[in-house]
């Protein structure tokens, strides 16, 4: 517990959404060397919902997100303790295969990062290396349609993904993640590099995708969290301060700290 927060906190009973859960974090601690980035976070993410992680810069929300598909493995010095269950299986147990986990838990990054190759290959590469046996043309079309990008790129599938605008690139990255047919999609501030109209498109897209996927989204934009998410988790200095249905977190927060943050008093 960080000094100074303790006395401010009121009711901290953990919020229990209704099962089944896609992701369940149990007392997760993550540290980079001696710097502790995530402290004792316990969080349940129900299937086919959108969960927003909010909080000021450096509060550990991106670190927590990256730990859910073991992308933190690539950060030097990152150490994790506790359990993260994906469909009841701890993804940090020794037998767990991080490659398989990342195949089932996709990720969309803050900065659009298409591969420097054609739009088509951007979509097909992931399925190809994972042994997809179906029809690749159909896969490309359905993925792009679901990412609301098909109409804009249908005629130029063999052109470079990098020739697209920033918003289109990010939707291409979402299409690339969808093409793997993952169970969960993690999004790390997917709209922070985009203009308002692209942001709106992606937000609408998220609401569509909820039917099929569980989405966990880190965002700095509280209006965005409010518009798209079913549940919101507020983190501060590595701790999960409050987690609950989005309306409750924004309208009637249990913690003073949450209230101050969502009302824009700091952050």
């Amino acid at each position: 517990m960080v000094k100074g927060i303790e006395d401010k906190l009121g009711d901290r009973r953990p919020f229990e959404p209704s099962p089944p859960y896609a992701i369940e974090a149990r007392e997760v601690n993550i540290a980079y060397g001696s710097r502790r980035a995530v402290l004792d976070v316990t969080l349940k993410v129900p299937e086919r919902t959108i969960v927003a992680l909010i909080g000021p810069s450096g509060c550990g929300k991106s670190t927590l997100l990256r730990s859910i598909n073991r992308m933190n493995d690539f950060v030097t010095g990152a150490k994790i303790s506790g359990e993260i269950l994906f469909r009841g299986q701890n993804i940090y147990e020794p037998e767990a295969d991080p490659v398989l986990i990342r195949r089932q838990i996709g990720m969309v990054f803050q900065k659009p990062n298409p591969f420097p190759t054609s739009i088509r290959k951007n979509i097909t590469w992931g399925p190809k290396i994972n042994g997809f046996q179906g029809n690749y043309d159909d896969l490309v079309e359905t993925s792009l349609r679901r990412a609301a990008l098909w109409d804009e790129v249908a005629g130029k599938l063999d052109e470079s993904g990098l020739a697209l605008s920033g918003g289109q690139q990010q939707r291409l990255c979402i299409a690339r993640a969808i093409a793997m047919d993952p169970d969960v999609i993690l999004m790390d501030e997917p709209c922070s590099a985009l203009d308002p109209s692209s942001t709106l498109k992606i937000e609408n897209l998220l609401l569509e995708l909820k039917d099929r996927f569980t989405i966990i989204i880190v965002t700095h934009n509280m209006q965005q969290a409010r518009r798209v998410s079913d549940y919101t988790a507020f983190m501060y200095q590595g701790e999960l301060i409050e987690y609950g249905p989005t309306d409750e977190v924004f309208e009637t927060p249990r913690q003073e700290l949450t209230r101050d943050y969502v009302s824009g008093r700091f952050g």
Partner: protein
Amino acid sequence: MSESDLTQGTASISSSKIREATAQYKQVRMHPVQWRPRRARRKIAGVLFLLFTLAATLLGVAALVLLLESVISQGWSRLSWDFLNNFPSRIASRAGIKAALVGSIYLTGLVAVIAIPFGVGAAVYLEEFAADTKWRRVIDINIANLAGVPSIVYGMLGLMLFVRICAFGHSLLAGACTMSLLILPVIIVTSREALKTVPNGVRLAALGLGATKWQTVRAHVLPTAMPGILTGVILSLSRAVGETAPLLMIGALSYMAFVPESPMDDFTVLPIQIFNWSSRPQDEFRVAAAAGILVLLGILLTVNSCAIFMRMRYQRKMQW
């Protein structure tokens, strides 16, 4: 208004504060004493710098023109099919460079086969796989230092390691191994620099799709870094074509009347042949040396053009 107010974003900017700031700004504008643009001086500095860089370029070009001029004027008339197709001879007019030319080509080919996989492999390991530990940093510094070790030292190492311990003898293989050692550090350093320029987002994107590290490197990182890697590889191969000292050290022949047929055969290379001819007293051999230099330059030009061509193809394949 404290600094934390600013960073936390709670400060409210009232219109009186805006007015205050505007007034301050105007005050600064009204005291030109605080600004000394010295535009004339800056412009002169700019022109001087331009002249310096131009002079540096011209110096290099001039040296090259001088070299080419003297070599071409001496050696051009000596170039002929016979010159390329004859073995060296005591009689200057009959002397040719067949053995050296073939030796150089074989040596370069063998060096490429040995040095490229090991060099690029080491670079990929150090850049993509190795954890950032104390040991890796020690290795880093040592590799950079090895690139600066004089070539004769590699010759001595090659003599001991390949000629004696591995018992390759004074063979083409021993020469190729020695040359590979010589250029390995350069290939490693340049390949690592090329790998460093690959945006990290590309790696994360691939790994996030459930690719293994090897698939990520193979399909995205290496192709993206390939133009840079090729540049380093070709520059170091050119160096291998031109090096003489380490091969003299391991005992490459300076007179050879046959063409090496297997990697275990004796060999000679163009620079050795040129050195040999230019140290003879007769003028005719000097002319032969000049012609030999032309052939060597021709090979270097060919190798470099290949590199540029391949680099362009790779750059076009990457759709940046």
